[in-house]
């Protein structure tokens, strides 16, 4: 490089001198740091050494009381229990194997406890204390306390555990809490919420425990504790109390829920009961159920496997996740569609010979009643559940109109209930089939859809919601389990806002006509006459049967010949009292056979309790009078 001008030379010498100043500056600055380090680490070493080695002050978080969950009447569904827990400080234990072996002589250690402890040992950091066994009995506590001197590094502590006093009742609605997993932790960190969980060990994993986590959680407190060299508390200096979580009151009526669950009597299925005027979910039943208490301390791998792999799928939230063909329960909505779209007038009568054929085709779409219903108008088509009427109606209406109208009852869309995991169901049309199967829509598809078979799928939640919308004359309130939150500090009650989901307009006359037909279903001559018999209030209902396996042309379905798990699903939807509905519901009994005989009686028990306050145990209730139609209709 060449420096030519005087100016450049002077610029360079100025620059070099500036660099030297900077160099001197950083050496001085770092020397100051070193000086400070020298003071800290040599002159004041003894002082800090003492602080670090003998007595330290550490912050010990204290667990908050998680908020209680009650049903709408204040009955406690989830609470907290103080539980004796045996904890091990692995760092202080010379031989972990030996210690655990010796402990097993004092307290009862099951294989489950051992497996769980091994898992925690692997996941933990070396200075953590680990729970070896929780839920110690009083006897075990006494025995351990007497021999405590033998076990260095083993401590007896109390921890708060979530407890569900009702066991497996309403488990799918409540959900459960579990230990915060590494995955939960990552999710919390991503939302910058991890700090709120210092000192908290459990997190809502499912159901309302998950949805209302932020309210239920509370805030951890801190104790300022003097600790010894091993980090163990010696003396508490000060304490900031934890803030308990808020109390959550559900819309659920646990007695109604229990009556419903018992009514299933061991059969698989689901039921949802809604208060039409508010969207309150009064019962959310999924059978079989599970005991959420098994999850609170980390579920044992074997039990998890058993629950998860069971053919009865107890962990599946059937009302939300079970998508079934709605079968004949779709008929009242189709009937209303016929009137509202002007496809068929109420007086239009068709002749049902027991089957339907598309013009120019030989294939017979059979009515469930082989010999046919004869002359059928709209009213009677709902009451006797005539398939032939609806095959023709669907074809006349066309799939697009049908799809659009059913959307107004929320078919094919989630209801928006306040717990996770809801499925969409399926309200098919041409565009859907093209996208899904790259195939065009055939008229035959429309025929099956007309009776809620074929591609149509709905969850029990959706059907209960649709029944509620029908009951409430087109005004839909978003279904919700949470009703209000009571602040633990101020006692202030925060109502969980009623959310008007949407409003859909129907012609009053048309609506009344269909509702009247639904009332007919539960009266003599209707498919649910037996279940409706003797009720001192009117029930608007509709039975349904959903095929599990297809029948060959000309083959007859005979229940006795079909494997139990291939039997039809039984449906019943209803609302009552018909003129001023207090409850709307959907009941599904998996492989239950007929809606009228399997599902409707369960619905009746729920309605009887909700409307009359009558429990099924009241055995002196008048028996249902014999019905006059000998051949009880059975769809």
């Amino acid at each position, binding site marked *: 490089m060449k420096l030519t001008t005087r100016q450049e030379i002077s610029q360079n010498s100025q620059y070099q001198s500036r*660099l030297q100043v900077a160099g001197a500056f950083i050496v001085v600055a770092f020397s100051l*740091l070193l000086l400070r380090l020298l003071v800290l680490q040599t002159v004041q070493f003894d002082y800090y050494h003492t602080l*670090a080695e003998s007595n330290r002050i550490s912050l010990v978080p204290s667990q908050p009381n998680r908020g209680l969950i009650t049903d709408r009447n204040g009955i406690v569904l989830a609470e907290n229990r103080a539980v004796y827990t045996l904890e091990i400080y692995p760092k202080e234990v010379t031989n972990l194997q030996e210690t655990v072996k010796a402990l097993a002589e004092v307290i009862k250690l099951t294989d489950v406890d051992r497996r769980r402890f091994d898992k925690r040992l692997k996941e933990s950091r070396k*200075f953590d204390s680990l729970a070896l066994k929780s839920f110690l009995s009083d006897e075990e506590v006494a025995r351990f306390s007497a021999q405590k001197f033998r076990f260095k590094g083993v401590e007896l502590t109390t921890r708060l555990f979530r407890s569900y006093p009702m066991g497996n009742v309403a488990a799918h609605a409540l959900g459960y809490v579990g230990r915060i997993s590494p995955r939960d932790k990552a999710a919390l960190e991503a939302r*910058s919420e991890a700090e709120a969980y210092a000192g908290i060990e459990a997190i809502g994993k499912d159901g309302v425990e998950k949805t209302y986590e932020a309210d239920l959680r509370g805030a951890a407190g801190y104790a300022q504790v003097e600790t010894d060299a091993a980090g163990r508390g010696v003396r508490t200096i000060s304490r900031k109390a934890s803030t308990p979580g808020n109390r959550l009151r559900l819309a659920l009526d646990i007695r109604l829920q229990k009556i419903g669950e018992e009514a299933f009597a061991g059969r698989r299925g689901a039921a949802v009961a809604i208060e039409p005027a508010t969207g309150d979910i009064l019962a959310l039943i999924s059978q079989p159920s599970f005991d959420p208490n098994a999850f609170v301390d980390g579920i044992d791998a074997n039990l998890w496997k058993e629950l998860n792999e069971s053919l009865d799928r107890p962990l599946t939230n059937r009302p939300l996740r079970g998508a079934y063909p709605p079968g004949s329960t779709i008929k009242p909505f189709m009937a209303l569609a016929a009137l509202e779209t002007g496809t068929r007038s109420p007086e239009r009568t068709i002749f049902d010979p027991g089957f339907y054929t598309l013009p120019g085709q030989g294939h017979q779409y059979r009515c469930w009643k082989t010999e046919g219903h004869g002359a059928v108008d709209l009213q009677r088509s709902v009451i006797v559940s005539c398939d032939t009427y609806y095959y023709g109606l669907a074809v006349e209406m066309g799939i697009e109109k049908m799809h659009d109208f059913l959307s107004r009852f929320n078919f094919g869309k989630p209801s928006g209930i306040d717990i996770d995991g809801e499925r969409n169901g399926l309200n098919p049309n041409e565009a859907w089939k093209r996208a899904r199967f790259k195939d065009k829509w055939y008229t035959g598809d429309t025929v099956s859809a007309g009776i809620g078979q074929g591609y149509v799928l709905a969850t029990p939640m959706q059907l209960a919601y649709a029944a509620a919308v029908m009951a409430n004359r087109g005004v839909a309130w978003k279904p919700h389990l949470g009703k209000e939150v009571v602040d633990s500090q101020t006692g202030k009650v925060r109502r969980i806002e009623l959310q008007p989901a949407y409003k859909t307009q129907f012609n009053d006359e048309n609506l009344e006509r269909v509702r009247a037909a639904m009332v007919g279903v539960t009266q003599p001559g209707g498919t649910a006459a037996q279940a409706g018999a003797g009720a001192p209030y009117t029930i608007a209902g509709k039975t349904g049967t959903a095929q599990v396996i297809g029948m060959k042309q000309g083959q007859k379905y005979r229940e006795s010949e079909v494997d139990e798990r291939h039997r039809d699903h039984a449906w019943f939807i209803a609302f009552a009292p018909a003129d001023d509905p207090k409850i709307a519901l959907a009941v599904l009994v998996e492989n239950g056979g007929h809606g009228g005989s399997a599902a409707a009686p369960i619905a009746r028990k729920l309605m009887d309790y909700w409307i009359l306050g009558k429990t099924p145990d009241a055995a002196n209730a008048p028996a249902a009078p014999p019905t006059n139609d000998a051949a009880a209709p059975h769809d």
Partner: protein
Amino acid sequence: MTKLLRKVLAFLLEPFDLYLLALLGALAFVGLLTLYSASDGSWTRWSGQVINFAAALVCMWLVAHVTPNRLASLALPLYLLGVLLLVGVALNGEVVNGARRWLHVGVTRIQPSELVKLATPMMIAWYLQRYQDDLRPLHFAAAAVLVALPLGLVLRQPDLGTAMLIGAAGFYTIFLAGLRYRVITALMVMGVASLPVLWSLMHDYQRKRILTLIDPTEDPLGAGYHTIQAIIAVGSGGVFGKGWTHGTQSHLDFLPERDTDFIFAVFAEEFGMVGAVIMIGLFIAIVLRGLRIASNASGLFPRLMAGSLALSFFTYAFVNIGMVIGVLPVVGVPLPLISYGGTSLVTMGLGFGILMSIHRHRGMMSAT
């Protein structure tokens, strides 16, 4: 075979100043050693940092190939992009822990203040080079405005630590360009005089940090907790330290943020005064080597850029260690090459890449 190996090695090492590379390597080794202990032997954390180092090394290697002239021509666009992104953050940024620092761009989110850390001194150096034949006070004033713009935007986020680093980088550039000592002194006096105004503009948490610096025991569980626990860790390390992975303060959960901002406390506790002298010695050697590269550079842009980068590196280390041992307020500045974190390491890699490039192209005439 050995010939091929030698060729490959030569290809890989060719753009680097081997002296600087060796120093950085030594510091990185110390860093990984400390991180292993600070993260309680967490393999994921440790291997993550190794990947961060690899990414930084690749960045450094690539940037080292770019000529200073090309770098100078990138100054304006990078600076404008940085300021634009900062405005984007102010208008539409994501709030994390009460500060608006992140901006969503498509699938990922970025922290534009990192870009500005390098773009600001580049911009100043480029601007001053343009007028190098006739530098007047007005040009220095304009340069100050160029620093103030991104600095103000970052301060608003608020991110005191990064704002300070941007301000320092800008100041170093202007200082090396020859701003008169008289002006510097006058500015300092004015700065001291304006402290009360600055105080009134600060956020509560920032004031608290400064107050607890003066007396950390005033708030032992809140803002002073970090500092107290860090000082106990450092002091109890003594001359030879407690030994690698044997720090009690660090491992009994007394030290917060022990693998990021407060990692020096872990190091000083476990390796003691001897370790601290070695580490600070490495920092000094790296900065002095950077200044040597600056001294040998030709052309105003490379000179200012190299000097500013070396001094910025010093500032990072000084501010972080000063904060851990309680002589500076707690601001979120990581310890370069030691703290866990990919963003700061990549920025470091880019910065040292520029230094390497300036060293490599030191004989070339600069464009005027």
